Each structure stands twice: as structure tokens, then as C-alpha cells.
């Protein structure tokens, strides 16, 4: 089993993801440079948070054309696992590996704080080990995390149970007040049709140790590790 963490110029959560995988979850992990073109040895690849290429033009727009992206597309097509966190989610949407787009937060502010997330589908490779009896506490840190999608896309996401996480209050209700950024239907994370690609705005790698206030994010990595170990 081997994990990879992609580094674009401007990635800044790459070390956090690497640390959590290596030191908290004890799985082999290597960095993948944005100019690399061969990722065949990896079982699961993390597109980390940050501001790839300065987020110029649109978030993720330039990263989408990085040399590594063709290899990541092939990786996803082979059914291997790929998770985009925050800026990584924005890159996956720009690359059309996930539908929809992420636009400026409704309140226009960059928001960095803990939020509650409801696990909407606990039967995916990413969520079997995620806690479901009460909402997950995982931080967000973004200025452009407002998920938008047209009605057809939303219908497809619903039909396939592909909405994995919703922003909610402490009791698990996805209310307007608990929606930090104006995302349609409080959507915080979605998967592709075959569930091997996940995009989410909250940062599970920042919530993987009790010492940091919450280890609710660890279950997401633990789920996919278990899945890879089984295959």
C-alpha cells in the first residue's frame, strides 16, 4: 500500500497530509511533484489544500493543466483512490473529475474554523470508519468554498448518493445557519459515480489527533486504508 501527496507550487497543506498518513496512520507515503507524470505505484493520492499557482484566474484553474494531472486522471480511471481536500477539491472540479464548481463564499470572507459535518453516505470507501452517531468536527479554511451545481448535476448526485458530507449544526441538522459559505444544499463533500474520487472542502488532515481538538477526520483516511488493505 502506498499513498501519495501532490505538491503544486503554492500547496500548503501537503506536509500536514503527509504527516498524518505517515505518523498518525502509519502508512507508506511519498510526495508527488506537480511535474511528475507517472503515479502508477500509488494506491491513493491526496491533492492537498493551499493556493496552487496562486489561485490565479480561478482556484484550481492553472493546476488543472499541471503535467501530473493527466497521470491523476488515468489513476482515477483505473479505479485507484484520489482525494482532493480544499484547494484539491477545487482542482478536481476544474479538471472535471468531479462535477460542479466552488465559488466565492457568500459572506465574501475567508473562513477558518471548526464546522460540523453530517456523513450522508456511510457505505463508501471514504466513510465506513467515519463516525456517524453524531456530526464530525472538522475545520474549514477557505475563501472560495461555496459549492454550486446545476439542477441536473444535483439530481445525479442525489440519485447516486454521491453527496458524502453536509455542513450541519451540532445536532446534525443541515440548517442555513450552519452553512458557512452558502454551498447549495449545505454540500461539503462529493464523490464521483464510482466513489474512488472524493472532493471535500473541510480538512480531515487537520482533525486527525485529539491533541488538535478533534480526531474526527482520521476516520476518512482510516476508511480508505482499510479498503485498500482488503483489495
Amino acid at each position: 500500500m502506498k499513498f501519495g501527496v501532490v505538491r503544486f507550487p503554492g500547496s500548503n497543506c501537503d506536509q500536514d497530509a503527509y504527516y498524518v498518513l505517515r505518523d498518525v496512520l502509519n502508512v507508506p507515503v511519498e510526495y508527488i511533484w506537480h511535474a511528475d507524470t507517472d503515479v502508477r505505484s500509488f494506491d491513493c493520492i491526496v491533492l492537498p489544500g493551499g493556493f496552487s499557482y496562486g489561485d490565479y484566474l480561478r482556484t484550481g484553474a492553472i493546476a488543472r493543466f499541471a503535467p501530473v494531472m493527466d497521470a491523476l486522471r488515468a489513476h482515477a480511471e483505473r479505479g485507484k483512490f484520489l482525494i482532493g481536500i480544499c484547494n484539491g477539491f477545487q482542482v478536481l472540479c476544474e479538471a472535471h473529475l468531479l462535477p460542479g464548481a466552488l465559488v466565492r463564499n457568500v459572506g465574501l470572507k475567508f473562513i477558518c474554523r471548526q464546522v460540523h459535518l453530517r456523513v450522508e453516505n456511510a457505505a463508501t470507501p471514504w466513510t465506513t470508519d467515519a463516525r456517524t452517531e453524531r456530526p464530525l468536527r472538522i475545520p474549514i479554511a477557505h475563501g472560495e468554498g461555496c459549492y454550486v451545481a446545476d439542477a441536473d448535476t444535483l439530481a445525479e448526485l442525489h440519485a447516486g448518493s454521491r453527496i458524502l458530507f453536509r455542513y450541519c449544526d451540532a445536532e446534525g441538522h443541515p440548517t442555513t445557519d450552519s452553512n458557512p459559505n452558502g454551498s447549495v444544499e449545505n454540500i461539503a463533500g462529493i464523490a464521483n459515480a464510482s466513489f474512488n474520487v472524493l472532493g471535500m472542502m473541510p480538512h480531515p488532515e487537520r482533525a486527525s489527533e485529539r491533541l488538535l481538538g478533534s480526531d474526527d477526520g482520521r476516520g476518512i483516511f482510516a476508511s480508505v486504508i482499510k479498503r485498500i488493505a482488503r483489495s
Partner: protein
Amino acid sequence: MALVKVYITLKPTLLDAQGRVVQNALASMGYDGVKQVRVGKYLEMHVDGEGDTLRKQVTEMCDKLLANPVIENYRFEVGE
């Protein structure tokens, strides 16, 4: 060499949070006749080429990179 002017705007169905704040600021300055503001992007590009070949190339640039068709519309003008 042609001067290409590209105008990118958020789709009308999307809420433009930035535009709304600008509108509120204008209203607070007394310009309460401003009913809506939409903030977009404007690009000037100096490009070799002309005619249909150039237009086709710019359309491609817009579709692939300059605009995100999921959230944005674009139009462009080709001048001297």
C-alpha cells in the same frame, strides 16, 4: 497581431456575492438607483493571427482555461 478583449461574467443564475457588496456600498454612498452589480473579469490579449482561425483559437482558450463553463459566460471582441 490582433488585440483580443475577453469579457467573463458569472452566469446570471449564480448569486454574485461580490457584486452585491459593491451595490450596497454604492447605495450607502447615495447611489440608490443602482439595482444590480455583477463583477466579472476583463482580459486583453495580443495574439498573432486573424479571422476565423483566430476566433476559433480564442474560443478554445476560453472554453479550456479562461472561463469555467460551469459557472461563467464569456464573449470576446477581436480588434486591431
